[in-house]
């Protein structure tokens, strides 16, 4: 009785973990950018590995195998953020820009401080919303036009950034 419940719970967690692992791998394959691929890889390295290892720990019970699985889980959970951080920093230093940044210079000698640039961008986005409400009141009925309007306003704001 207890054994069957243990097997079912462990198998369910393992299936959920395998699902998340596969989702993360599909993200690694299909995402358009290095940074978005890192984002997808973190899914499979936290949720996927976590569910898989916890499911196998439930299957193993209180044995030495369970301790080894806990060691594996701890090592993976500690090292994957380190690797992701190092990878993102190396990619930024190399000059690879995230999608949506445009022509801004984020890192390097020819640019201002990166965080200040990013902060300015955030401030501009905070200034943008007060301009939107009149447009929304004009185009409340068709929702598609409102979305296209926001995208065009994003493009316009990015072009302004490029000029400045």
């Amino acid at each position, binding site marked *: 009785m207890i054994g069957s419940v243990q097997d079912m719970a462990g198998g*369910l967690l*393992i*299936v959920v973990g395998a699902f998340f692992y596969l989702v993360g791998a599909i993200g*690694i394959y299909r995402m358009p950018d290095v940074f978005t691929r890192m984002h997808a890889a973190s899914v499979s390295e936290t949720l996927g*590995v976590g569910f898989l290892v916890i499911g196998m720990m439930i299957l193993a019970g209180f044995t030495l*195998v369970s301790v080894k699985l806990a060691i*594996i889980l701890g090592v993976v959970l500690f090292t994957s953020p380190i*690797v992701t951080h190092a990878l993102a920093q190396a990619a930024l230093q190399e000059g690879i820009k995230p999608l949506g940044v445009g022509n801004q210079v984020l890192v390097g000698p020819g640019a201002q401080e990166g965080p200040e640039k990013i902060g300015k961008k955030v401030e501009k986005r905070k200034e943008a919303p007060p301009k939107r409400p009149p447009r929304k009141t004009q185009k409340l009925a068709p929702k598609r036009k409102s979305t296209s309007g926001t995208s065009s306003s994003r493009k316009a704001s990015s072009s302004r950034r490029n000029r400045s």
Partner: protein
Amino acid sequence: MMLAAATLAVLAALGLAVTRALRGPTVFDRVLAGNAVGTGAIMLLALIGFLTDRPEFLDIGILYALLNIIGTLAVLKFFRYGDLSHPGGEEPADS
């Protein structure tokens, strides 16, 4: 049954990661895919150990987990400085 399904899913994930490692336009894509392949190898070892009732594979999994981060950081440092004995710092080598 569920272990076999999970093993197949991890194998498919490994295939996708290997494809990204072969196709990746930049070095960092390949390094990221290599890291994902390492994690997938750990999970595959653990799952196969459970499938065949041979939990000794978990030791090899721990070893892979410890080697994975060292290898990834070493590759990143090599491609940034061009030398593994570089002390690091602000100015990377000419590249």
